[in-house]
């Protein structure tokens, strides 16, 4: 019985420790993101902008407060939310495919969402005129179309790329390539048919960037991301059982068809909302859950919240790097995550290939 008493604290301690470390780093990243950028900003400005004037050294510079409230704060919030959401979506897809290489970007789900968004940018006003006229609905149309695009992509990969056995990884990634190609073709068509301004906006956004985020667009997307994140976290317990295989999960009482539909829907909402404000940001959903799994193991009740924290940290840090590295210009965050994530993806692929041979 001694081992019984000795084991649980060990299991609890690691995720808790990882949570504290991640939360600390996240707080640091938040402060650095607010403080540093193209415009120099003092601590007083920062506290003033956050409504904490009493704590600061007095009133901040009105212009700087404006920069913080209207540019840096919404941008930071987007990076945190999109990072957390993409990491959760990645973890959910990995559980669903029983494969650590499943990721919204690689499977074409992000491109599907971008396809929906591109259709909205170029054809939205014409296609959806009656809906655009409804004031409260209008801010939801972009994330809504992105959701539809993501859902189409998820349906495609789920129906084609989910076979088990040897070669499962290859099939999944190949289907992802196919879905990505279809999405890219539709995006290309939209770009081709759009005006020059639309083309420029689309191309920056396709690289993955928070440069164009503003409060009015952010609200509905944040709401959808929060709902999806909550829904995904609630499946954590069931995701563990999927690791045994779908038949085994059914033997343990899980309605795997329903769970698959639920995960597909939540992931589409998550990725659709994320992509609608940031464009395509790859590899966060791959790298973050992978790192968390290495640190605390694969149990999803710890993995999911820690992946959300880690995703928020990773993307806010990546955006900070992208904003500062080439001042006064900035590097789109999607390029930063790809430069870090793609080599790791290749390393994981090689490890996977060795495991198969």
């Amino acid at each position, binding site marked *: 019985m001694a081992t019984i008493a000795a084991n649980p604290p060990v299991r609890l301690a690691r995720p808790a420790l990882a949570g504290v470390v991640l939360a600390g780093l996240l707080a640091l990243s938040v402060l650095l993101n607010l403080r540093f950028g193209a415009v120099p900003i003092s601590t007083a400005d920062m506290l003033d902008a956050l409504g904490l004037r009493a704590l600061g050294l007095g009133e901040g510079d009105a212009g700087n407060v404006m920069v913080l409230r209207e540019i840096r704060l919404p941008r930071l919030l987007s990076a945190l939310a999109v990072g957390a959401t993409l990491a959760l979506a990645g973890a959910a897809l990995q559980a669903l495919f029983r*494969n650590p290489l499943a990721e919204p970007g690689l499977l074409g789900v992000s491109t599907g969402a971008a396809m929906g968004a591109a259709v909205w940018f170029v054809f939205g006003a014409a296609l959806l005129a009656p809906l655009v006229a409804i004031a409260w609905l209008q801010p939801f149309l972009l994330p809504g179309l992105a959701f539809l695009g993501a859902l189409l992509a998820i349906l495609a990969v789920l129906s084609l790329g989910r076979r088990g056995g040897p070669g499962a990884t290859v099939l999944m990634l190949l289907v992802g390539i196919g879905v990505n190609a279809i999405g890219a073709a539709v995006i290309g068509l939209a770009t081709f048919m759009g005006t020059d301004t639309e083309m420029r906006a689309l191309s920056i956004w396709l690289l993955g960037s928070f440069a164009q985020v503003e409060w009015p667009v952010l609200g509905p997307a944040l709401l959808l991301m929060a709902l999806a994140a909550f829904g995904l976290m609630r499946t954590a317990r069931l995701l563990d059982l999927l*690791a045994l295989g779908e038949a085994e999960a059914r033997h343990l009482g899980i309605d795997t068809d329903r769970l698959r539909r639920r995960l597909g829907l939540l992931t589409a909402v998550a990725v659709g909302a994320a992509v609608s404000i940031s464009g395509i940001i790859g590899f966060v959903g791959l790298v973050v859950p992978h790192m968390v799994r290495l640190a605390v193991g694969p*149990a999803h009740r710890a993995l999911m919240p820690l992946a959300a924290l880690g995703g928020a940290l990773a993307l806010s840090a990546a955006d900070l790097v992208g904003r500062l590295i080439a001042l006064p210009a900035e590097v789109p965050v999607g390029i930063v995550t790809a430069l870090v994530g793609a080599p790791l993806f290749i390393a994981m692929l090689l490890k996977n290939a060795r495991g198969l041979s």
Partner: protein
Amino acid sequence: MRIEARDIHVRRGANPVLSGVTLAFAAGEVVALAGPNGAGKSTLLDTLCGELLPSRGELLLDGEPLAQVSLESRARRRAMLPQRAGVAFDFSVRQVVEMGLHPHGIAASRPDGQRLVEDAILDMDLRHLAARPVTRLSGGEQQRAHIARILVQARAMERPLLLLDEPTGGLDYRHQFALADVLRRAARNGATVIVSLHDLALAARVADRLLLMESGAIVGDGPPAELLTAERIAGLYGLDSRSAAGLVPQAA
């Protein structure tokens, strides 16, 4: 009767795999399934656990049509070990064994949950491996982890129904015998155990009742000592009589 099949026919794709099987299983018995490859043993177990639907016939769990029993309720009334279970990601042996608690809503941290998990880990001789990732273990060790998971799921039931498809695959003799003892003990406590086995000596050791299958039909049903004659085994597996005689347990 715990579980009953009345004239069931099952197809896999276009091929009929079971044709006209009628069987009933009572509480407290260990039933071994034996027969050549492709005889339909796995199909019968998959059907009894509800994973495959019969195209004809009736399947009753405690007198209730199995198709109408929800997945949750099935998982609280029968535990199934499929052939070759695998695990994605580096779940530890203990985590995998704890998954057997899920259908019963028992938290692994609860004292009764801990006891079930610890007992199964001990029974399957996994104590020294409990913290190791299942994926890094040998085939036999992985199999023991899955058996322990099934034991946890079954032991949390009032009257367990255990279905095991080739549970001895990869197990050495010591662990085969340990499993046989565990299954005998379960039956003594009122469980119904249906297990497919290739080793006829082990079947004779563990089972009260032996079912011989051939081409999707039951061709023998009775105590192992009566069924296991060299003549019958030679016919069933297409062996010459000398080889068959070597396979029949001495007691028979």
